[in-house]
């Protein structure tokens, strides 16, 4: 699981029926500085990714998402998903040792 910042949504005109009830978010994984409390803009370096969400996240939300085959586990039938939003993060308590 990784932490990410929701920077947008993807709207679909046609979709696989198993996606019903969810939405797709554009998520930028957090940099180490942002874990420490740095502002979310400018965005962290690295690729953003599309994450399936059925918890109700929107732009500006901090999310914990899982990747890989585990992302498809919550679905009833085999579904082509490789990133799944598992939690809406209220608070991050981060104290890296120096």
């Amino acid at each position: 699981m990784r932490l990410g910042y929701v920077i947008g949504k993807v709207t679909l005109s046609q979709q696989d029926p198993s996606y019903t009830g969810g939405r797709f978010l554009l998520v930028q994984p957090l940099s180490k500085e942002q874990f420490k409390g740095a502002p979310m803009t400018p965005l962290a370096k690295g690729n953003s990714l599309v994450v399936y969400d059925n918890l109700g996240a929107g732009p500006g939300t901090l999310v914990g998402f899982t990747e890989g085959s585990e992302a498809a586990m919550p679905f009833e039938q085999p579904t082509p998903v490789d990133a799944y939003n598992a939690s809406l993060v209220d608070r991050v308590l981060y104290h890296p040792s120096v």
Partner: protein
Amino acid sequence: MILARVDGVIVSTVCHPSMRGSRTIICQPLDERGREEGPPLLAIDPFGAGEHQRVVLSTDGGATRAFVHDPKSPLRNMVIAVANDGDAAGQP
């Protein structure tokens, strides 16, 4: 399995049902010399590992699904061991 240091926790009220009741910690993966390697990860922690303690993470989704008793859980990373070195700085 990954050697990591506990660097924090997250608080979440809206989450997948399989995460309820589990602590979710922020882990910094370490290399063989104890140096930070890559970005922090999230993992569920059944042991209550202390801040800056070194832990071993399993990245086996099947084991985590068995632990949370939910075959539909999307979780993957889980603390499976706490290092017995008593070194809060995470140094080897």
